[in-house]
């Protein structure tokens, strides 16, 4: 074949049409790939939030509540058993139940945090401290029952292991913080890939529009139904991905603000309250009024209670937040009496109050705060489930719609018999 004829055939209308059709199909293939990657990225991070990050956040707060409950109950058991008194068996059972629950929560957290070594390390510390804590509690109990010296020192050690600066609560909070960062990363993941996919789809649509114009010029066809169908496929897929990504982001934002936000506040509240109670207990067992909790802790707790109430987004949540405040104030009433007893050197009355009414009221506060966390867990899970549902069938669509579009474009753009010769 002569070179001139080859060039002429290469530039012939059918050849140009085939080239355009091939390019469009290639563009569809690229769009399908990028769309699929985007959807998969969103989907996998959504799954991680639903199956891992979310449950870890909740279990960590459950662990904090269990530690607080165990410690409050153990303190009551110890103080009731001082000087040959009868140990409070019901509080001992509560302690045992809380201590038995904690390893299960640690296991739940461990199975959900994936391969993040630093989080595993913090969790391992909590597990080791829990074992040590249970041991020290038993030692303190035995010493207390036998009137041995050093029993109160052992109780102080147990308090340090649970609520101290490097204690279980601090490590649990570290797990929370790391998981929260992971959650934020997961929420933001996939944005770039969605943007790339949408740009690719927009480019494909632009090429299809140009192709329609070229086709009209080359063949005098008024409109190619194939190209129109292909354009519709691109338009649907692009809108679908865009809408799903935006709505998913809204759902996750709602999960963050209305679910996790309240969980985080409740966690801070529980930790601060626990810190308060630990200081109170220390003041009694050391018989030292200077160790009574600082007023600034109460101020912090008040701020958190107010934040919790203000962040309520329904009447029910507000009622729950109000219940937490009422339970806290009820505990604080007893605590003020205890502080008065400590200041006036009336330690027997103080011990009796801490072991009885004070402990009960603190338990009321702690479980009410925990109930609020659990209610927000439902809200959090609901929003995350909605975010995941936004992507239903989108992976399938990301392959199928470009495929249909490519076939339609090919059929719409290919030369027709006897159209040009």
């Amino acid at each position, binding site marked *: 074949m002569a070179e001139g004829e080859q060039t002429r055939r290469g530039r012939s209308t059918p050849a140009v049409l085939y080239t355009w059709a091939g390019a469009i199909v290639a563009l569809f293939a690229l769009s399908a790939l990028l769309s699929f990657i985007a959807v998969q990225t969103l989907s996998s991070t959504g799954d991680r939030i639903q199956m891992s990050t979310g449950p870890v956040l909740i279990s960590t707060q459950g662990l904090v509540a269990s530690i607080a409950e165990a410690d409050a109950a153990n303190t009551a058991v110890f103080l009731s058993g001082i000087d040959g008194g009868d140990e409070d068996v019901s509080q001992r059972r509560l302690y045992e139940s809380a201590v038995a629950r904690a390893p299960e929560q640690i296991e739940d957290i461990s199975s959900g945090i994936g391969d993040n070594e630093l989080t595993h390390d913090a969790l391992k510390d909590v597990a080791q401290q829990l074992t040590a804590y249970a041991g020290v509690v038993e030692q303190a109990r035995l010493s207390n029952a036998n009137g041995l010296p050093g029993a109160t020192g052992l109780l102080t050690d147990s308090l340090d292991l649970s609520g101290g600066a490097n204690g279980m609560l601090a490590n649990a909070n570290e797990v929370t913080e790391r998981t929260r960062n992971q959650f934020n990363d997961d929420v933001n993941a996939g944005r770039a890939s969605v943007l790339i996919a949408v740009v690719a789809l927009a480019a494909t649509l632009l090429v299809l529009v140009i192709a329609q114009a070229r086709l009209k010029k080359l063949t005098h066809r008024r409109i190619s139904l194939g190209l129109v169908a292909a354009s519709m496929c691109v338009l649907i897929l692009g809108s679908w991905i865009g809408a799903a990504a935006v709505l998913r982001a809204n759902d996750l934002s709602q999960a963050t603000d209305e679910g996790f936000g309240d969980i985080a506040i409740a966690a801070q509240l529980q930790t601060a309250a626990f810190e308060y109670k630990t200081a109170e207990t220390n003041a009694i067992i050391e018989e030292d009024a200077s160790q009574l909790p600082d007023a600034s802790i109460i101020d912090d707790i008040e701020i958190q209670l107010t934040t919790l109430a203000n962040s309520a987004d329904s009447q029910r949540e507000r009622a729950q937040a109000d219940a937490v405040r009422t339970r806290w104030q009820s505990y604080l009433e007893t605590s003020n009496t205890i502080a008065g007893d400590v200041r006036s050197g009336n330690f027997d009355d103080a011990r009796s109050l801490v072991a009885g009414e004070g402990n009960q009221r603190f338990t009321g506060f702690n*479980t*009410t705060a925990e109930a609020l966390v659990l209610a927000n867990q439902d809200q959090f899970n609901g929003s995350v489930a909605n975010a995941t549902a936004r992507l239903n069938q989108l992976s399938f669509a990301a392959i199928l719609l470009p495929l249909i579009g490519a076939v339609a474009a090919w059929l719409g753009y290919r030369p027709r018999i006897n159209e040009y010769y």
Partner: protein
Amino acid sequence: MSPRRFPPRTLHPLHSRRTFLAGAGALGAGAFLASCGASAASSERPVDGFANLTVVNWAEYLPLDLLPQITEDIGSRTIDYREEYVDNVSGFDEIIAPQLGDGGTPNFDLIVPTQWLAGRMIDRGWAEALPLEIIPNHVNLDPRFMTNDFDRGSRFQMPWQGGMTGISYDPAETNGEISSIEQLFDTTNSALRGRVGLIGEMREAVGLAMLANGDDPARPTFDAASAGVDLLIDLAGAGHFQSVVFDDFVGELTSGRLAATMAWSGQAAALQLDSPQFEFVIPDEGAISWFDTMVIPKNAVAFAAAAGWMNWAYDPVNAAQISAFNLYVCPVLGTQDALRSLGGFEATLADNPLIFPDTETRNRLSTWGSLDLDAELEIEARFDALTEQIGFAN
């Protein structure tokens, strides 16, 4: 036991637009719209349903003359109060499961199972989350009732009354005092042979047997619970039990058919008021504590009225009237003061350890812990077979 049948539930096969769209096509506009239209899932049910309230409770748990006052206070049109809850087995099999098992609308709005069964209802998603915004008196719930593993903080149920299962007996009929389970189970005591009542709730009867064996019902193992059932089977084989009893133990004792029985504290205390010769004791080995708790079933029609009922019951003044009537353990803070302010007989109840257990009493109580469900079902099956063998009181 008298099984009661409820009218068949009306089925409402709802096909919402959303579910239709979601299922309409594997791909395309339907799925696209479904993904855009998903609304935030919420566990919060809107507060509505002040319609006719239906409450299913155990017998003799509420003074019925309070019903008009309750109806007025909570704003319900009517209250259909049914004392049809006889025991937890029939309660589950004949009332709860048939009504709630397929996600339909129950024909009752409030039910009062024992705490372990409430736990199962919650676990199966058969209980509504409590609308705390219309139950402000929830803050009066005694924290001791809020630490259950099945519902931390009491989000799905509010205890109606607690109780203890101990021993009730007539000293004139038992050849003297009975202060322990060992004495209750003493087959050499001829006065007791064939004249002892076995309480029909597995966790209480087996729990007491476990205490007799030196095991802890608060932390049951399958082996320990099995040993408890074995002990009861041996006693039944020796002809020790007269019958299986529930709240009918009172009639069986007063008629003289029973000399001694496992008994519920409230009714035993009420019996003592009428017939002081009867004793109720927490055995030396300990007693079993439990509580019956108010649950709003999923999809209850009079949802808000049911919550109103709960709120009413948690007003200490109202709780005082309930406790003064049934003499069971009161879960409402402030009720002691309310009873004292009433004076007279009611005021004496404020210091009754059967209604407000002190530390010493609480230290002698165990609440049945949780067993693996399969293990628990096996123990239940063995216990049910035993009760069938012994027979129920007439």
